[in-house]
């Protein structure tokens, strides 16, 4: 019996050790983030990722589909917090409707779909030089004569087709899904601070204003978000 328990304990340890990382490391406090708010003892820190920052942070091309926010949640002291993506919303300023964050699976599929619509143009230039010699018949007189010379060649080929670049294949989609999941804000009950990214399926317009809403214990935390 002890053997079985110890085997399960080892398996549990190994599976835990092999599991991928989750989210990001939260900063020391919510006010360390550019955007922050607090209510009912719960603090929210947020940072909007610019397009350049998103490119640096993710291998997946999240700029093609989403606004990405890094979120940190700090539960009240001696309390716990149930983190759910459903509690977040992004609303365009003064708009009636809001957008809920997408799961990593949906975002990966969206990126794959857009990547598959790309067009790939490949250019193949070529050049060559050589020397040849031999005997050939004169086309006018019909007599054989010795000839030699240098020849050159140059050319270019252009191939146009569907893209097979990053994000198109199913294997790539699986990798993107793993990355987005591992870097996402983890859901579930927590007594400690947690942080990670959430993905809103919104194509932002330049210089537009949004507000991030987070519902905690029936109250709504609102943080203004400005897209440059």
């Amino acid at each position, binding site marked *: 019996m002890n053997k079985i328990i110890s085997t399960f304990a080892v398996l549990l340890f190994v599976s835990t*050790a092999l599991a*991928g*990382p*989750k989210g*990001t*490391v939260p900063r020391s406090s919510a006010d360390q983030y550019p955007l922050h708010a607090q209510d009912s003892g719960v603090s929210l820190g947020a940072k909007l990722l610019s397009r350049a920052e998103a490119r*640096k*942070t*993710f*291998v*997946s*091309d999240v*700029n*093609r589909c989403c606004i990405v926010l890094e979120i940190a949640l700090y539960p009240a002291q001696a309390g716990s917090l149930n983190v759910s993506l459903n509690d977040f919303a992004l609303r365009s300023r003064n708009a009636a409707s809001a957008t809920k964050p997408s799961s990593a699976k949906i975002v990966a599929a969206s990126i794959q779909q*857009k990547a598959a*619509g*790309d*067009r*790939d*143009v*490949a*250019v*193949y*230039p*070529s*050049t*060559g*030089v*050589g*020397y*040849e*010699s*031999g*005997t*050939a*018949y004169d086309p006018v007189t019909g007599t*054989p004569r010795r000839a030699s*010379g*240098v*020849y*050159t*060649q*140059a050319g270019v*080929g252009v*191939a146009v087709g569907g*893209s*097979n*670049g*990053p*994000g198109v294949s199913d*294997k*790539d989609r699986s*990798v*993107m899904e*793993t*990355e987005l999941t591992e*870097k996402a804000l983890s859901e579930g009950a927590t007594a400690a601070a947690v*942080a*990670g990214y959430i993905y809103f399926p919104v*194509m932002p317009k330049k210089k537009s204003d949004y507000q991030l809403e987070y519902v905690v214990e029936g109250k709504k935390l609102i943080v203004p978000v400005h897209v440059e």
Partner: protein
Amino acid sequence: MPMKRVTFCLGILLAFVASIYAQDSSTATDNGSIASASNASQTKTQTQDHEAAAASGNQNDQQSSGQETHVRLGGFVVSAGYAHFSPGICPYGYPYFPYYSPFSAALWWDPFWGFPVGYPAGYFSPGDGKGEVKLNDAPKNASVYLNGGFAGTVEHLKSFWLDPGVYDLVLSAPDGREYQQRVYVLTGKTLKIEAKLAKPSIDTERM
């Protein structure tokens, strides 16, 4: 007359090479770095090379939602040859046909043959559907481990190609310094990893 043709041909070649070089220089600034998601305290450690995005430049920023066209250099062929023709074989034939090239043997040379230990030959060599990983700033004698398995040394794996997937990359120098990074490899994408090795601490053993 032949010399003029040679000069003309070489001129085209040089102009093309110069244009490719200029294109590379102008897009080099598009490279970014990828920070580890699991270790926010680390500085940006990977950079990703948006080769395709670079071709279309800033248009990507403005037309992200639409279809994109990626223009790339598929390859470049330079050849030299010698041909001999005789009336018995090819009296009026095309004199430039032979594709014999004294340099063709060089095209078959594979720098990855024989490396690394523990992986089959060609495992890290370029291929369709693979992504490239470049290791920068790492000591040449550091060992490279992928998902726990020894892959070779940085000297031989300065740049290598992997199938799309998620890998745990560890670099370990003989003096005990280490570098760990979780890498996400996508088809046709280049990851530039700024590997700054440091003494491992208990907290950073697990990424």
